[in-house]
């Protein structure tokens, strides 16, 4: 297998490679293809970088608004998801009622509901939080439940044999066991919560990074547009890595591999 240090070098080379290719493509588009829209379609990365440097305060402020709403919704959705998973693992009836809906809801384009929820709530912040929570809730609940259900019966029997009560079993066995499943769900949910928050921005909010994207798009300031798009892309990536970091912190015995597949809403 490849060493840790090697991995880092490879990743850095990749990032540099992508920037070089981008630079090259922008050059080709401008000087070989002579596309009149070249500066809008694909500006030079260094130009975008300088724009970002010049406007970093504005971009970060807008990003923070979007990101904090996404985070609140994410935490809310995670709590509800975990609660539901625990209820479903406690009661067979509860699982029978809720599980089919959890599965079906995975096939429903939840983000399609965004404008409708926005129309009902009529408040940017509340609808941002509601949609982010809603979208977080499903992957968390499904993955947490599958974690709670994959605890071996022998282990439970052992704890019951030393007269542990239900609460103790959950505290000492079920929760620690289900943690890695929970994090799989969280890794899927985190970027989606950010996506939801940005989408609500774009549907007619007053602040946030999505507004900056739309505004820059309509006012023909291509560099700001690209800087905003990159900021929002980074927000999604950062949210993903925050979860991975939290996983390493909470489950140090587990070697987190980015991109483990799981169930996604």
């Amino acid at each position, binding site marked *: 297998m490849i060493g840790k240090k090697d*991995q880092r070098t490879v990743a850095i080379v990749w990032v540099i490679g992508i920037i070089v290719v981008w630079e090259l493509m922008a050059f080709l588009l401008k000087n070989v293809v002579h596309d009149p829209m070249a500066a809008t379609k694909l500006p030079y990365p260094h130009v975008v970088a300088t724009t970002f440097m010049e406007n970093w305060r504005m971009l970060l402020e807008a990003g923070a608004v979007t990101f904090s709403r996404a985070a609140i919704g994410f935490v809310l959705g995670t709590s509800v998801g975990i609660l539901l998973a625990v209820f479903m693992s406690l009661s067979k009836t509860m699982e029978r009622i809720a599980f089919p809906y959890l599965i079906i809801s995975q096939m429903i384009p939840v983000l399609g509901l965004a404008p409708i929820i926005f129309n009902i709530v009529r408040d940017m912040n509340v609808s941002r939080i509601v949609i982010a929570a809603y979208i977080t809730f499903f992957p968390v609940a499904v993955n947490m439940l599958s974690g709670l259900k994959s605890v071996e019966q022998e282990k439970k029997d052992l704890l019951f044999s030393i007269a542990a009560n239900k609460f103790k079993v959950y505290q000492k066995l079920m929760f620690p066991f289900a943690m890695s499943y929970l994090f799989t769900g969280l890794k899927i949910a985190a970027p989606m919560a950010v996506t939801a928050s940005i989408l609500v921005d774009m549907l007619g909010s007053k602040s946030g990074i999505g507004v900056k994207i739309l505004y820059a798009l309509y006012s023909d300031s291509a560099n700001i547009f690209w800087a905003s798009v990159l900021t929002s892309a980074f927000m999604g990536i950062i949210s993903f890595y925050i979860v991975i970091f939290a996983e390493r912190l909470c489950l140090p015995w587990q070697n987190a591999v980015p991109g483990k597949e799981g169930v996604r809403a």
Partner: protein
Amino acid sequence: MKSKVMNLLWPLGFGIALILVWQLGIFHKILDLKPFQLPVPTEIASTLAANWPKALQDCGVTISGALIGMIIGSFIGFAIAAIATFFPKWGYGGMIVVTALNAVPIVALSPIMNLWFSTGMAQKIGVVTAVCMAAMAINAYSGLNSLNPYSIDLMHSVAANKWTIFRKLRLPNSLPYLFTASKINIASSIIAAIISEYFASSTSGLGFGIKDNLRKAEMAMGWSYIVVASLAGVILYCLILLVERDALKWHASQK
């Protein structure tokens, strides 16, 4: 047998109860909503029945864009995973990049595609392709690489070359993962297509329909589009399940 019936009855009862509560306006009382903000199920159903051909046509536009994008994206994603498998050291770094790409919000991709392509359909396909590519690449990569060590040893012991190992061992091994990716992708491709239509220059499709009807304050029509989109998602998902059951008869998860 009895538990099977119960498995069906409980959720069914819950669903019917939920729709009744909705229909009788209890949600409206709790959330302090007017009927025009949240239409009741019968109104949605009658609106959908009245506009069935139009809804179906819009659905066709969206779904065809989503499917084309998904097919292109899945092929590219699989190709990336295969290349990464043949060149493990540099491929692993590439997979990190793809994982990062997977976390990029769809809504950020959508305006970029709007700049690159001029027609609504091409914009939609572009967004869906990018979204599906990442999920497929990640799943295919883990499918091509999480091999049983004994199988690899066996292959080496008969002096199989890289290509034979790929064809005889890695490819079959990756099949369940490919279906997992397709199941993820089918839902996200429809979402991506709808989101793309919110912002693209298209004048048809579910996303445009939702946006346009909400602008005209025709909530019931907006909701019927959501119903159609969900139905399409469920049907496509079930289709993939059927194909999967047929293609993976040999696999442990199907027994």
